[in-house]
């Protein structure tokens, strides 16, 4: 087993990994940029070294600096976390060259499965269903139109070189096909200098369901079941759960087998995720492979009881996947929400700043994978993920009730967070029934908020309390402004209200 692991990351995932190291008796080495000296991962690591200025390209993305720290501090392995260099094949290659073990797939598997087009080609060969369409760039538009007709509309025309919606057209009928093709082609040419297009069947309101796989270096590949991540805002997952409310045992087996086939075909080792889209008829289509640990790995951990980071480390150290895994029976239901420093009133724009105070939930069924603390300033330079809040329960209903309870207890002042978004989602009847798809949240956010969910009386009293709090805040602020001396030091009576305590003894 390893003696010391370099964690080439920051924030909650660095904390997650160093906790696993500590539980295994392995020393952990953290790295930090100039704005991260006080970050939680630096506080909790066994060792921590500076690697440069705030911008990640000068710090967390610098393979040379990372490996320099690894070498000087005597590490024998590197864990990349997710994000940053986690899916960059240059890191495993550099690790091999430096005599370090990379905790993740080999560079070749990362390349064979990680890119969208390579993954799609491999999927086709491994007999894993992909979204129907042309396999190669369209050369003859008429043939493509015939294919579109036979697959059934709507279809998507997409730029081969594409991204960000440029050179993309949704086509609803034969009549629209020709002009759409010309427009998309010219847009692609303008945007990317490459006019080539390909054709894909358009899935309306698909669900996002992914399979967690694990492969050891001895040829064993297993599926640990699915996660459903259909609640997305602008293609970013915001809630993940396991199991999926609609996946049947039969479908789970089929999807798991497909994912394992694909991983084998790509010579995969370590943890990976095969993402699928699921249509209304429970047909699944390969989307892409994430060749790393996912943000949402805790929901799989909560239902299987496994520690995926420890398994990653064991596999990287050459251990075999124990036989018992294929017989693992998931228990209950788990759900994760990603708490971000975002401003919900400003289109969820990042909202960094100093966390003045916060209350974090705890108790039965609640797990918090935390990357921040009270008094810390969320820096401006990175993804503003604060914490992941994960609930477990015997049923989806109990899990949701616990998550709602935990979100009711959660508060943070000084920064804005997206916690209110989750409070809303978790009271939406469609969500409660599991009727979700990848466009569901974006559609929801364009609908007016339904008033029915909160009982009137309680809402009224809460707004009374809020009005009193606001007035008191203003009053004490005015007081301290007109009398600067009283602003210094916490006068304990500052907020005290007469409040007719006598009356409290009479009522209720």
């Amino acid at each position, binding site marked *: 087993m390893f003696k010391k692991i370099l964690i080439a990351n920051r924030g909650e995932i660095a904390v997650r990994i160093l906790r696993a190291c500590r539980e295994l008796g392995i020393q952990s080495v953290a790295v930090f940029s100039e704005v991260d000296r006080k970050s939680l991962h630096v506080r909790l690591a066994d060792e921590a070294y500076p690697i440069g200025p705030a911008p990640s390209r000068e710090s967390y993305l610098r393979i040379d600096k990372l490996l320099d720290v690894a070498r000087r501090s005597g590490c024998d392995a590197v864990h990349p976390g997710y994000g940053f260099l986690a899916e960059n094949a240059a890191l495993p290659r550099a690790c091999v060259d430096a005599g370090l073990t990379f905790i993740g797939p080999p560079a070749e598997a990362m390349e064979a499965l990680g890119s969208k087009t390579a993954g799609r080609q491999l999927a086709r060969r491994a007999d894993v269903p992909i979204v129907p369409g042309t396999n190669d760039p369209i050369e003859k538009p008429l043939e493509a139109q015939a294919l579109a007709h036979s697959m059934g509309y709507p279809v998507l025309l997409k730029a081969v070189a594409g991204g960000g919606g440029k050179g993309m057209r949704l086509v609803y009928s034969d009549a629209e096909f020709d002009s759409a093709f010309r427009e998309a082609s010219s847009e692609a040419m303008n945007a990317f200098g490459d006019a080539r297009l390909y054709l894909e069947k358009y899935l309306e309101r698909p669900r996002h369901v992914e399979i967690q796989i694990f492969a050891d270096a001895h040829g064993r590949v297993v599926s640990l079941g699915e996660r459903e991540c259909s609640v997305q805002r602008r293609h970013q997952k915001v809630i993940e759960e396991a199991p999926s409310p609609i996946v049947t045992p039969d479908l789970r087996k089929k999807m798991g087998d497909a994912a394992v086939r694909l991983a084998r075909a790509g010579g995969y080792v370590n943890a990976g995720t095969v993402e699928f889209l699921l249509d209304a008829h429970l047909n699944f289509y390969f989307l892409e492979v994430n060749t790393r640990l996912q943000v949402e790995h805790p929901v799989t951990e909560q239902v299987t009881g496994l520690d995926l980071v420890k398994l990653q480390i064991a596999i990287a150290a050459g251990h075999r996947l124990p036989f018992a895994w294929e017989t693992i029976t998931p228990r209950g239901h788990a759900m994760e929400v990603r708490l971000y420093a975002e401003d919900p009133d400003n289109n969820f724009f990042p909202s960094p700043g100093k966390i003045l*105070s916060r*209350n974090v939930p705890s108790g039965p069924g609640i797990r918090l994978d935390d990357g921040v603390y009270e008094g810390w300033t969320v820096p401006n330079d990175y993804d503003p993920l604060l914490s992941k809040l994960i609930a477990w329960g015997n049923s989806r209903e109990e899990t949701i009730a616990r998550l709602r309870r935990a979100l009711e207890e959660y508060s943070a002042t*000084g920064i804005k967070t997206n916690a209110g978004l989750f409070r809303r989602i978790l009271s939406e009847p469609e969500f409660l029934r599991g009727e979700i798809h990848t466009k569901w949240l974006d559609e929801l956010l364009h609908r007016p908020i339904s008033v029915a969910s909160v009982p009137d009386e309680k*809402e009224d009293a*809460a707004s009374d309390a*809020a*009005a*009193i709090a606001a007035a008191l805040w203003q009053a004490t602020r*005015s007081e301290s402004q007109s009398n600067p001396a009283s602003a210094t030091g916490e006068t304990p009576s500052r907020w005290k209200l007469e409040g007719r305590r006598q009356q409290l003894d009479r*009522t209720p």
Partner: protein
Amino acid sequence: MKFEVELTGQCGKKTRIVELERDGAIWRVLLDGRPVAADVAEIAPHTLSILLDGQSFEISLTPCPDGKLKLQAGLQEFTAEIIDPRAWSGRRHGGVEAEGRQQIIAPMPGKVVRVLVKAGDQVEAAQGLLVVEAMKMQNEIRSPKSGIVERVLVKEGQAVNAGELLCVVA
């Protein structure tokens, strides 16, 4: 002290008149003219526990740069605008003169990665004006109204602070 508090919550807007009267170390509360049994305790600098006729509320407050307050009470969130007749008189109506002319300000510190319009351009409501990047996310800032771009005050690649004026649509 008498405050007019305008609250915006999930169930719309409402206005409450809160009267606070200091009596030594103690406050008396009237809500819309009616005395209320409010027992308030400060839990943390920005967190109050309020017992209102026995109902327990925990309110956390975050002041916004525009003078409003964000309040959270369990599952509910409110935005409060406070009109203090003594200290703030007239403030509420000060914004009227700006009507029709919209100042687009940076919602947070970041970098302008793309400027999509120039002075004199005709823009529609919700049309993109510029793209600001912060924490690896690009966000398009859109026009709040149809009109003419009067000025653009920033350039591509420029770092901006929260509240900095980016452009003006008239």
